[in-house]
């Protein structure tokens, strides 16, 4: 049974300052961790802000956990944690007091908010710095405390806007580990907005690519990864070293493999269920042929993104 959608975009359009920033967005997102990708100005942050109720839709609507963003903003916000892209904090407070305030604003009683604030700060790795004023934190620490305040009240859905911005490699690694930990724990869904393909590829199961305020492509990365494992590109040679792709294609067809000629006299194969790459080696050995090269024809997120940027702005790639 397919998972219930977390976010449904239903012809959503948003106009800011007289300019249409998001246009007719339609998608249904259901993964544990969903990536929002797009170049700068594509509308990723505007989409998050609209889902949070900061901007009113000009047309269409969206639903978060089935709740309409036009009429149930407070109920939606009660289930969300938001980590903004920009530096955001309340000045003149210690880390733990800041996170506690945010948890109390989300509806936790003071004692529970204090307990969760301590836990959230330890969880993100700021346990030792929790009594220091937030104003004195480094950029990396400010990113972490933004994550802590988004987590402290225990939301069902996390919006992370460019969470690795300005982080050095170890801090970036730690942030991505935390995101993957939250994803794998299964207690909260994550929407990760980023322009960094690697961040999205490492954490997300689904990706929505935006271009000029439209959905350029929606891809289920898990399904893509599974499909990619069935696509092979082979360089097959006869015993004398001559290319033997056509002969091998006939042999593979007997196992139910579809084939097509590739570049440089290679052979592209689609493996049916129950047939694995090692079967190809056995087939070649039985026919006295050699497989000198075998590649999984992997369509990386970068390929998807680049195709989306080149494709029509109506969702077709």
């Amino acid at each position, binding site marked *: 049974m397919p998972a219930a959608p977390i976010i449904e975009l239903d012809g959503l359009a948003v106009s*800011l*300052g*007289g300019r249409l920033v998001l246009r007719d967005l339609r998608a249904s997102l259901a993964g544990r961790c969903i990536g929002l990708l797009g170049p700068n100005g594509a509308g990723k942050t505007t989409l998050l*802000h609209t889902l*949070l109720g*900061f*901007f009113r839709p000009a047309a269409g609507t969206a639903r978060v956990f089935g709740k309409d963003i036009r009429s149930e903003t*407070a*109920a939606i*916000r*009660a289930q*969300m944690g*938001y980590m*903004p892209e*920009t*530096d*955001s*904090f*309340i*000045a*003149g*407070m210690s880390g733990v007091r800041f996170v506690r*305030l*945010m948890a*109390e*604003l*989300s*509806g*936790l*009683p003071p004692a*529970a908010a204090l307990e*969760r604030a*301590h*836990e*959230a700060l*330890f*969880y993100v790795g700021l*346990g030792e710095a929790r009594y220091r004023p937030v104003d004195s934190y480094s950029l990396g620490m400010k990113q972490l405390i933004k994550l802590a*305040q988004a*987590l402290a*009240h*225990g*939301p*069902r859905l996390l919006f992370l806007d460019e969470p690795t911005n300005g982080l050095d490699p170890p801090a970036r690694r730690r942030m991505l580990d935390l995101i993957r*930990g*939250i994803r794998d*724990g299964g*207690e*909260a869904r994550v929407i990760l907005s980023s322009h960094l393909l690697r961040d999205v590829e490492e954490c997300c199961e689904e990706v929505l690519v935006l271009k000029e305020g439209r959905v350029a492509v929606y891809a289920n990365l898990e399904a893509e990864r599974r499909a990619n494992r069935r696509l092979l590109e082979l360089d097959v040679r006869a015993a004398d070293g001559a290319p033997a792709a056509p002969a091998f294609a006939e042999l593979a067809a007997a196992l139910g493999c579809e084939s097509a000629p590739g570049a440089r006299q290679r052979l592209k194969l689609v493996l049916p269920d129950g047939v694995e790459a090692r079967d190809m080696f056995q087939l070649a050995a039985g026919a006295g042929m050699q497989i000198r090269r075998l590649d999984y024809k992997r369509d990386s997120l970068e390929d998807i993104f680049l195709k989306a940027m080149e494709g029509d702005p109506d969702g077709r790639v």
Partner: protein
Amino acid sequence: MAVYERTYHRYDGPMTTPRRRFLVVPRYALAGVMRSRAFVMFYLLCFLPPFAGLIAIYLRHNLSALKLLNVPLDRLREALPIDARFFAGGLSLQGFLAFVLAVVVAPALISPDLRNNGLALYLSRPFSRAEYVAGKLSVLALLISTITWIPGILLFLLQGYLEGAGWFVAQGRVLAALFAGSWVLIVSLSLLALAVSAWVKWKPVARIVLLILFFVMNGFGRVMEMALGTWWSELLSMRVVVETVWAGLFGLALPTGMPAAAAWAALVAGSLLCLGLLLRRVRAYEVVR
């Protein structure tokens, strides 16, 4: 999200009601304001005039104390009548202290949140812009109340108790004027101070702008009034406008030629303008056109 487990867990405990959630902002803001020793000292000084009023009322009704001080009762009653003028004068003095208090406190309430993009954090929660503004306003309202109408009404009740029911009934209007006049000051002053703080994100500059608005506009209004001979220019002076409203409420002579209705209209229009400016600024994100 137990510390030792280092894993994320949802919160499934009890939640507070929206009404109680509204009190979170004033509670934290008040605690932040009271952290400053200088402010606490000033706040305590604000209670000196009501304390002096308390002593005056006590002396008027304590013959043995007057004898000890060698002050004849008739002379004291003549020099210091406890009537509408006494309470209006007290409110005027406390009003000035309330202005200083607002200049000190208001910029610390809103400016840092705007400067550090804190509003996005407040407003991404089940917490509205109106609740945010009301929460911040309530801090000023509470502090100014404790130095205006609350001590004023306590002094009035003490005087009424010592003087007798006749005085209490005769001066009943003063009680209403104290309460209404104080709230006129609280609402208009708080909205002005918060609106300025919202538009000027730097605390010291916001304080300077507030002082300019108060003193320079007062002076400008007075000069224009003298030059043009019309009370219209006095509408620029918040002090004159508020004191005109108070004079109308207490039933005293108006301080200038400005009618009380004009002062009310100016205050309402000014407060609505400040509220509009405040709400325009209090947004999670500013849209740059």
